[in-house]
């Protein structure tokens, strides 16, 4: 599979999407006037609890789900008004993967991957070549003649990704693609999705309930709650500075909302957030020496936000007010964001 050069990007635009179901007398609103855009080449996360409407919204992009109202535009083409046959053609430009893979159990790996190529009318020899190529790309060279039942969950999802990418789509829609996988397999699948973005220039929309998926691969994130968008922003903004109560909860579940509440108070308690290379530098030591304070780390975690190093630690400072003022100024100057630790006993 070649690199992304020259590939045309896509912008997905969903405007004023509502979806209402009628169940007997009761009407349920699955989506309530939702508008989102997906920039070409980005990985957009749709996050929320189950029932928030994120999967329904994802299915509106390729019209597997027909919105009750609103417009769907992909790469300048209004999809919601297209006749069925034309819509089928447009869908071939978008791949989709699912939590439970949804492979044909009666077909071999090669036949599964060839399925969308057949739909597109690719010749037999070109199909075979492309199947080999894309299976190699997902790391499953030599698996052509196996059946899905002979594969592990991670391998099945790789086949599903190969199938979705085989026709060279501009967009990949991922519906809880890692939710049925163990943590280690999840990482390899997320790496593959990142590679699809970087090497193939594919735009990804990723539905998840797991903030760590957002942390590892997303550029931007849309937080959904009860059929509405409650927060939108870059992955860094949402993760480091969540505004909506639900977002805070998701960030807390992912372990990034630290307060150090289990540790005895050893001084002035602060939460320090590092983004970028200063994560790996001896910042605390330098500040402590320059300002004449001492410190204790009571909680902390260092990780990466997609590729960017990032970390958050809860630190208790010992020293006079004057010394602390100096230390705080130094920290800010070194690019560390400082906030007072909120001691909210009700949380967690």
């Amino acid at each position, binding site marked *: 599979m070649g690199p992304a050069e020259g590939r045309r990007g896509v912008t997905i635009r969903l405007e004023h999407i509502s979806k209402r179901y009628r169940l007997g007398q009761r009407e349920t609103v699955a989506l309530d006037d939702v508008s989102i855009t997906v920039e070409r080449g980005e990985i957009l996360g749709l996050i929320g609890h189950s029932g928030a409407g994120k999967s329904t919204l994802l299915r509106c992009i*390729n019209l*597997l789900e027909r919105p009750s109202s609103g417009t769907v535009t992909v790469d300048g083409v209004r999809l919601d008004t297209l006749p*069925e*046959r034309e819509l*089928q*053609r*447009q*869908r*071939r430009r*978008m*791949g*989709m993967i*699912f939590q*439970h893979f*949804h*492979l*044909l*159990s*009666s*077909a071999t790996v090669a036949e599964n991957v060839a*399925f*969308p190529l*057949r*739909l*597109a009318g690719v010749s037999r020899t070109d199909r075979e070549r492309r199947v080999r190529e894309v299976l190699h790309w997902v790391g499953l060279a030599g698996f052509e003649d196996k*059946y*899905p*039942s002979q594969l592990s969950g991670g391998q099945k999802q790789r086949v*599903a990704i190969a*199938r979705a990418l085989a026709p060279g789509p501009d967009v990949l*829609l991922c519906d809880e693609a890692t939710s049925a996988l163990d943590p280690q397999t999840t990482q390899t699948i997320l790496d593959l999705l990142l590679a699809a973005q970087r090497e193939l220039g594919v735009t990804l929309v990723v539905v998840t309930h797991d903030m760590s998926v957002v942390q590892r691969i997303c550029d931007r994130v849309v937080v959904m709650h009860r059929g509405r968008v409650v927060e939108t922003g870059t992955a860094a903004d949402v993760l480091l500075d969540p505004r909506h109560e639900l977002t805070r909860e998701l960030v807390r579940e992912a372990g990034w909302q630290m307060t150090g509440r289990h540790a005895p108070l050893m001084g002035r308690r602060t939460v320090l957030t590092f983004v970028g290379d200063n994560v790996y530098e001896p910042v605390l030591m330098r500040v402590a020496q320059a300002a004449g304070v001492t410190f204790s780390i009571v909680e902390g975690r260092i990780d990466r936000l997609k590729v960017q190093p990032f970390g958050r630690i809860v630190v208790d400072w010992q020293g006079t007010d004057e010394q602390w003022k100096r230390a705080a100024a130094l920290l800010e100057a070194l690019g560390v964001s400082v906030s007072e630790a909120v001691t909210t006993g009700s949380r967690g």
Partner: protein
Amino acid sequence: MTDIVWPEIWQATWETLYMVGIATALTVILGLPLGVLLVLWSTPRLRPQAVLYQVLSVVVNIVRSVPFVILMIAVIPVTEWIVGTSIGVNAAIVPLVIGAAPFFARLAESAMREVDPGVMEAARAMGASTWVIIWRVLLPEARPGLIAAVTITAVTLVGYSAMSGVIGGGGLGDLAVRYGYERFQTDVMLVTTALMVVLVQIMQMIGDRLVQHYARR
């Protein structure tokens, strides 16, 4: 066992195989599309048609609830119109197919309902039309269940074909009725019955082998 007429028995065995073979083939040809329609018209993601489904469903149920002996006699006019006569092996095939097709349609319907709707959704996401989904997803994925349904239908047809002996349909059942029942030749009845047991066993075995071969889950 001296008065057993072996040539007649072999002739009757061949007639049974012929009747069941042709009737099974025609039943599948007629019943499978009916089964597909039953699934298609009742599945929200395919082509839901509540009224058409109800009509077809009721028709299938009516035919299925008529006892075969009665159905056989009731369709004699149809048989005469199609075959030209109501007696003989070919004439027996008509009621067999009419009786078995709705039965097979139901079996096929339930086999296809076992197919993971998610796989069909994935095909739709890839831009497949309903026709392609039926042809390349629904039928291949249901294949083991469909083969089992064909086996059950063929075995049932062996039983039905024996009943057609009552109206002179030919085959082993006919022989059993004429010699065993009407002339009290118990030995002929036993031999013909034994042959039918063997026939059913062989058919079931072949069916099971095929199901096993195609079940890849």
